[in-house]
């Protein structure tokens, strides 16, 4: 498989080529074929968002620039000192010099095509930073980057400070079309791509910033708020429940007969910093349909990824199902847990238990099959989504805040000649076994059994 990992310490993007069962923390285990850093800058220019658009890659950095890279695959050239542990040293029967067989694979080279810069604004966050329950100053960053569902050559980027940029990709150049301003601070901006329409709808929210749905007109000129959530009722001590949605994913619209046509029809799931799971139906009202405590100690939750097979997932990670009573999702807390819950808030599995030591900054499901995880403990891990088994674990020297899986193909490891044949010989299976043979065997076994008994 081929992974692109963004490292926060030097703003680099690392390309990892590895097979299943790679584990760099064990010396004898399988090691990655290649770990190569690209686009090294400094810590202030760390990559926060990654998106693969056709054959190219769009990268959003924390210094406010968005860059378009051309990706070309070149065969990996083997240096003489380049030792990968999966190399197989084969000696032929005549005891000639050992032949070192190297796995053949490609690595990617990136070429910068176009840049748009100055898309972030820290001063817009000063007020929010003072009010925030975070103790350190909040810096602006890109919270999301999506392709528009109706036009794949247009990107929608949202920043923490509430700037929404529409950027087009034409003839290998990026062009800023329009910038809109929405209420800061943002923790997410999730685009709705379950059904097709001319205009684009996305949801956003953040600390003390209730979930809002906004509609972007087809010519990108206008951004109008179409719906806003309402906070849940006060608790039994009549205290206000704090608001902090941290991630949101859409479901398909309701499809029953009772739909009121004058109301919007959206369904979405939200996790909050105060460890709630909220299920909203805009037909039901502005308050959530369900508001469930996921963790007892109110540990903050950070990410949300829906679980479903490949056909049920959209490009933006939304779930193509309208049933709010049957879904499961993966979320992370700020300690070290990556958990999968069902829609009732019941814990199904924990990923990387006893293995992950730092907070998982980033999780993402891929193809309904894999879960990519990266975070403060400087490892990138790939899990099997269903069984929670770890498929790969690679040390990337820096903290990681975004991972992109380009493909999941295995690199073929060359086998030394002759070895395969010998292995076949060893595995002798009687192919033309008749019933007579079987009877003979049974008879033999029974005879043996009776002999033992008589001895006693």
């Amino acid at each position, binding site marked *: 498989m081929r992974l692109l990992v963004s490292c926060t310490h*030097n703003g680099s993007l690392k390309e990892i080529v590895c097979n299943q069962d790679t584990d*760099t923390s064990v010396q004898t285990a399988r*090691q990655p074929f290649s770990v190569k850093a690209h686009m090294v800058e*400094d810590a202030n220019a760390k990559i926060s968002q990654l998106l693969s658009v056709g054959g190219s890659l769009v990268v959003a950095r924390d210094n406010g620039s968005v860059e378009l890279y051309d990706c070309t695959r070149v065969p990996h050239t083997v240096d003489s000192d380049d030792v990968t542990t999966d190399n197989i040293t084969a000696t032929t029967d005549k005891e000639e010099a050992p032949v070192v067989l190297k796995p053949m694979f490609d690595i990617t080279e990136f070429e910068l095509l176009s840049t748009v810069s100055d898309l972030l604004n820290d001063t817009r966050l000063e007020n929010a930073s003072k009010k925030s329950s975070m103790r350190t100053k909040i810096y602006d960053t890109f919270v999301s980057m999506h392709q528009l569902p109706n036009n794949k050559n247009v990107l929608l980027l949202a920043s923490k400070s509430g700037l929404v940029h529409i950027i087009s990709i034409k003839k290998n150049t990026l062009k800023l079309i329009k910038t809109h301003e929405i209420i800061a601070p943002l923790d997410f901006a999730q685009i709705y791509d379950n059904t097709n329409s001319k205009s684009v709808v996305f949801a956003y929210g953040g600390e003390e910033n209730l979930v809002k749905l906004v509609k972007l007109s087809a010519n990108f000129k206008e951004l109008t708020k179409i719906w806003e959530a309402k906070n849940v009722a006060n608790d039994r001590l009549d205290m206000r429940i704090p608001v902090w949605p941290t991630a949101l994913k859409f479901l398909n619209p309701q499809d029953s007969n009772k739909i009121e046509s004058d109301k919007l029809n959206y369904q979405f799931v939200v996790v909050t910093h105060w460890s709630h799971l909220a299920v909203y139906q805009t037909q039901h009202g502005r308050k959530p349909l369900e508001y469930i405590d996921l963790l007892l100690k109110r540990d903050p939750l950070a990410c949300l990824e829906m679980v479903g097979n490949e056909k049920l997932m959209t490009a933006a990670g939304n779930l193509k199902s309208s049933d709010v009573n049957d879904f499961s999702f993966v979320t992370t807390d700020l300690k070290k847990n990556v958990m999968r819950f069902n829609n009732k808030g019941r814990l199904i599995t924990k990923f990387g238990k006893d293995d992950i*030591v*730092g*907070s998982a900054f980033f999780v993402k499901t891929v193809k309904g099959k894999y879960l990519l995880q990266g975070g403060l403990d*400087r490892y990138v891990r790939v899990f099997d989504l269903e069984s929670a088994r770890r498929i790969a674990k690679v040390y990337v020297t820096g903290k990681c805040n975004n991972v992109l899986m380009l493909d999941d193909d295995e690199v073929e490891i060359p086998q030394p000649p002759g070895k395969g044949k010998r292995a076949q010989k060893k595995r002798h299976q009687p192919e033309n076994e008749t019933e007579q043979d079987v009877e003979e065997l049974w008879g033999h076994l029974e005879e043996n059994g009776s002999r033992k008994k008589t001895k006693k």
Partner: protein
Amino acid sequence: MSGKNEINISNKMKRQELFADIKDQKNKERHTMRRQRAKEERENPELKEKRLKENVTRTIDNMRVYDETIASNNTSGGNADGDVDGEADVDDQNDLMKYFNTSHRDHPPKIFLTTNVNAKKAAYEFANVLIEILPNVQFVKRKFGIKLKEIADMCNKRNFTDMVIINEDKKKVTGLTFMHLPEGPTFYFKISSYVEVLKIAGHGRPTSHIPELVLNNFQTKLGKTVGQLFQSIFPQNPDFEGRQVITLHNQRDYIFFRRHRYVFRDEEKVGLQELGPQFTMKLKRLQRGLREETEWEHTPDMDKEKKKFYL
């Protein structure tokens, strides 16, 4: 005394006498062997070198479980591309430089020291000790009702570079929190085996010179981060005429704090005088920012594996 040539002597005194004789004989043999070996080695120092090289005691320290974060000078790491190793060094610098203002000439460390809320005598006594150890430190009594964020804001306005909080529980100092300002990270250490100065026999009196700092055995990425914390707290221009050294020695994830004064008696002999106090720290938690996302946390099941160390 067991085995084939076991002698059955029923008289206990006789038995003991015999046993003592045998033991004495063995001791004598050993001593003569050692004397002879020493003599040979005095004549031929290479033999000694060879013996020391061959007979290395296996301790759990040198049998520690492989940790790839140590591997920056270890090329057998298997991580394919040759640039990885060179890059790792740069990584270290970049990563840690961001957190700690190592350019001390411009920003000498300035430390804010306080205790937990409602602290008892033990905490203030420990604060007195820390005031003597830490340079450029200001102690402020902790008041009830001021949030950590507000304290951090006040410290930032007054150009403090670090905040140290003493944690006292049931009239005993149990922990120390180090926060680097303004962006973190936060370290929480458990404190144990505290020996006050007066209890140390032959202790000296410290002077106000800036001490030298010895950091021992911080190997992994996490260990280096911890080492960097101490580097950033002490100024990097020690007063050598003070001849004072602070040692932070890491062994099996416990960090031992010791303070000495040295003297060069002649060209070979060095004298050490302990100044005290002594205490031991154990890293329990490392968090990003000021107590925000956990970067590393000690959990009880980490102690299951005896040969795995994290610092």
